């Protein structure tokens, strides 16, 4: 792979970026910013002992955003040359002016100091410096363990690495260089017998776990050492009983709870969704601004904190793509709704003079939109063993398998990979396709026990889709095993 942006390249970006700002302002822009950068990706996947995916890509480009009388214009390009930068800046202004034919520009821009800074994420081992042989050897060894029993019909072992370099310049004088490295890895296998298919993954489904760290993440996961358990659990699930239909207590594993946080709190509290900006695609939110007055989101022990500064978080950056410095704040405090996730153009809907710094774009070629920050359920004090022992009648559910939630983020239904019945404080029979269904505020209000910091960890979501055109973003959710009382489980299908 090519090296991260060099000083020479960054100097070229700065020269061209300043030219873009000048062109935009001379064209009539009240505000202009430009992001120039490079994204490098390496993805490797082994399927059934064969290299089924190898991506080594690099993408450079730039995007210019302007406001003209409150109307928005954005244009992007991939030829990083003076002529192209000038053409794209002019196009962004033209688009903004044309947009006013469809209605008045109403965007308001929250204030922020014009930061001038260099920020880099931290890592121990540069994943792009680790040889392909070493990565393939580890994946092949894990895959071999998964395939040692005939019930396993498909395997997937993968690693993914991403390095982003970006320069942000604004017409207010901001000048922010950022470099972020993200890593991910995981294994998964499918067991199949007549009429039954089950899947099990480690450390999490859909590619494993992802963090803003280096190759040290891969070493910490011990993929080979966990392959045998992953394989055997998939096979055991083939003959497991189905999840019973009824009402019972559930204990969710951290990885499953991470997705629950993402879907039923993260998206519900994006203020652009609340304002209807996403209404034609992913939907709106039940969390209208009338609920800023202490709406009861969950039980008293529910504290959900957004934190774009937490070490290792996929959404951890120095500054967002509006040039706003990263922050930490409560979304839900002691069970009550406290604040939204915002960008500079929606902060005023929260009566806030400053954005929370949640504006991010997928690469330079997309327009920044409000994205979920690292959003975590703060840990409690239970040990996992004590939590199970304290549960008279319940189901432990782990591993994301299927998720669905309505367009206002109220009615959800999740199915997990792995379920284990709990009777009188003891684990009982294995359950396949464990499913629970609920309504968001009622669900979080039923939270009565959260495990301690020792059980708490960050789980990465590397593929959150939102926006038109759809963009993918990354974020993390910290979670520990947590109990929810009297939930609807199973489904008569």
């Amino acid at each position, binding site marked *: 792979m090519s090296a991260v942006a060099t000083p020479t390249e960054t100097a070229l970006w700065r020269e061209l970026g300043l030219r873009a700002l000048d062109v935009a302002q001379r064209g009539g822009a009240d505000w202009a910013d430009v992001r120039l950068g490079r994204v490098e990706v390496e993805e490797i996947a082994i399927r059934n002992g064969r*290299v*089924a*995916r190898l*991506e*080594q*890509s*690099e*993408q450079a480009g730039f995007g210019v955003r302007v406001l003209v009388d409150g*109307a*928005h214009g*954005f*244009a*992007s*390009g*991939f030829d990083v040359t003076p002529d192209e930068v000038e053409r794209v800046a002019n196009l962004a202004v*033209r*688009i903004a002016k*044309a*947009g006013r*034919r*469809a*209605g008045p*520009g*109403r965007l308001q821009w929250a204030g922020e100091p014009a930061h001038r800074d260099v920020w880099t994420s931290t890592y121990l081992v540069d994943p792009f410096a680790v040889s*392909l042989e070493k990565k*393939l050897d580890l994946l*092949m060894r894990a895959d071999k363990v998964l395939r040692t029993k005939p019930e396993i*019909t*498909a395997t997937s072992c993968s690693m993914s690495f991403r390095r982003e370099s970006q320069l942000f310049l604004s017409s207010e004088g901001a000048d922010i260089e950022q470099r972020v490295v993200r890593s991910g890895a995981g294994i998964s296998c499918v067991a*199949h017998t007549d009429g039954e*298919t089950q899947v099990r993954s480690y450390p999490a489904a859909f590619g494993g776990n992802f963090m803003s760290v280096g190759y040290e993440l891969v070493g910490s996961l011990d993929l080979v050492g966990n392959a045998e358990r992953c394989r055997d659990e998939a096979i055991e699930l083939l003959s497991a009983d189905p999840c019973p239909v009824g009402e019972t207590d559930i204990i969710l594993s951290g990885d499953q709870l991470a997705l629950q946080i993402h879907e039923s709190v993260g998206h519900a509290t994006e203020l652009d969704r609340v*304002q*209807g*900006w996403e*209404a*034609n695609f*992913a*939907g709106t939110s*039940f969390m209208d601004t009338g609920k800023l007055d202490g709406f009861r989101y969950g039980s008293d022990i529910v504290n959900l904190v957004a934190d774009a500064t937490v070490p290792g978080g996929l959404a951890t950056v120095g500054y967002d793509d509006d040039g706003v410095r990263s922050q930490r704040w409560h979304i839900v405090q002691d069970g009550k709704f406290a604040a939204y996730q915002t960008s500079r*153009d929606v902060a005023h809907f929260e009566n806030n003079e400053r954005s929370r710094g949640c504006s991010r774009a997928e690469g330079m*070629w997309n*327009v920044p*939109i409000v994205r979920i920050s690292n959003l975590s359920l703060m840990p409690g004090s239970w040990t996992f063993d004590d939590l199970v022992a304290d549960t008279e009648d319940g189901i432990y559910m782990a591993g994301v398998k*299927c998720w*669905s939630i*309505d*367009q206002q983020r*109220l*009615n959800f*239904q999740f*199915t997990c990979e792995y379920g284990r019945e709990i009777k009188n404080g003891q684990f009982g029979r294995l359950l396949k396709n464990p*499913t629970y*269904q609920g309504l968001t505020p009622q669900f979080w209000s039923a939270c009565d026990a959260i495990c301690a910091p020792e059980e708490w960890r960050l789980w990465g979501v590397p593929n959150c*889709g939102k926006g*038109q*055109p*759809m963009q993918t973003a990354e974020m993390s959710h910290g979670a520990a095993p947590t109990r929810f009382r009297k939930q609807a489980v199973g*489904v*008569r*299908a």
Partner: protein
Amino acid sequence: MLDPDRAQRLAQIALEESGADETEVCVTQYEEELNRFTADHPVQNLVRRMANVAVRVRSNGREGKASTGTPTEAAVRTTVRRAIEAARHMPAGEFVPMAGPQEDYRLRRPDPLTPDPDHTADAVARMTGACRDAGCTAAGIQGVENDLRLIANSNGLSVWDLDTRARASLSVFADEGAGWADGLCAGRDALDVDAIARRAVDKALASRAPHGVDPGEYTVVLEPAAVASLLLFAAYKGFGAQQVQDGSSFLAGKVGERVAHESVSIDDDVYNPLTVGHVFDGEGMPRSSVALIEHGVARGLVHDRRTAQKQGCRSTGHALPQPNVSGPLPANIVMSSGAGETGDLIKDVDRGILITEFHYTNMVEPTKLTLTGMTRNGTFLIENGVVTRPVKNMRFTQSLVEALERVSGLGGDARLASALFGGYTVVPSLRVDGFRFTSRTDF
């Protein structure tokens, strides 16, 4: 920007630079214009451009791949060297040879849809104006896309194509009611934004003040968008040869058997006049029309060169870019139509539900294609053959395999439909008996 000559020059440079046993180059150029609006004013107006040059090489039985988003001669030469270096580190494997020259392309190559922000904004104004006049609020998009793709390889294969799409999608809100309509076609002129606005407004006004009904089994009349979001799972999880070969498809061991009601026929057909898409696949092979289900009987599967070799047949031209985990997939599902309008499907329903669209559909279980999702943007109760009132949204959890067996009517209103998170199908309205709703929501 959409420059096939530049794409061909870059491909030639890559082929010349590579000394590998086999080399494949895929050049893409993509341009999109979009106006995104809400509450009657634009919030995001954009034109974005992207390019990619992907190089796949094989040397000494090893395969490597690299790509760049910088379509310059220097970047392409560097990318070739990176691909060769990657191959050097890869394990040896057995590969199906890259394809040679192909004769039977049915290339379309329409004129590109040049971004026109004034025209787009005017179209948005017509849609939002219609909504305002009806006392409704609107959110949606209007835009165009151009997608140029070229594939060439060292065995003499070389082909390029341009896929164009014009699209409008409109969500309309009135009191507690919601409606939605969209249009998608290859050319800007065929996009009737006024008709889209009328459909969405009518739906929103009709769905005001919805009441809840109890979950349970109902006969449902699914409009094309709802049908599309279900069938896409059959496309992703069932009709590809790799999934049948590894046993994970609901069609595994059932090809030649009855798998759906006899009225159901499903093809993959990029040449259907209503659909969009490239006419060659990720290996450069021309796409064939494939009968997947014929009068309820599972017939064919889609193949890439690897699954075709394994099965002893010819690739149908449904490869994704190589290498990949998923195997071949359908790209242009087309479901056979019946006759008449949606109303003709409704008139025989004693008590049922009319559904405009599903939201966030996902797969619970693969062997029966058990899916779950929510209704959205216009859900109505049918009583004694007529639509009587709007109802609040409900969650379904339903096996698609069983639903296809219980199809009791097809409309004559086939149209190109898309679904949340992508994919294209040409499908009619569908009536399905015994469709299971398992919970409901508050709106």
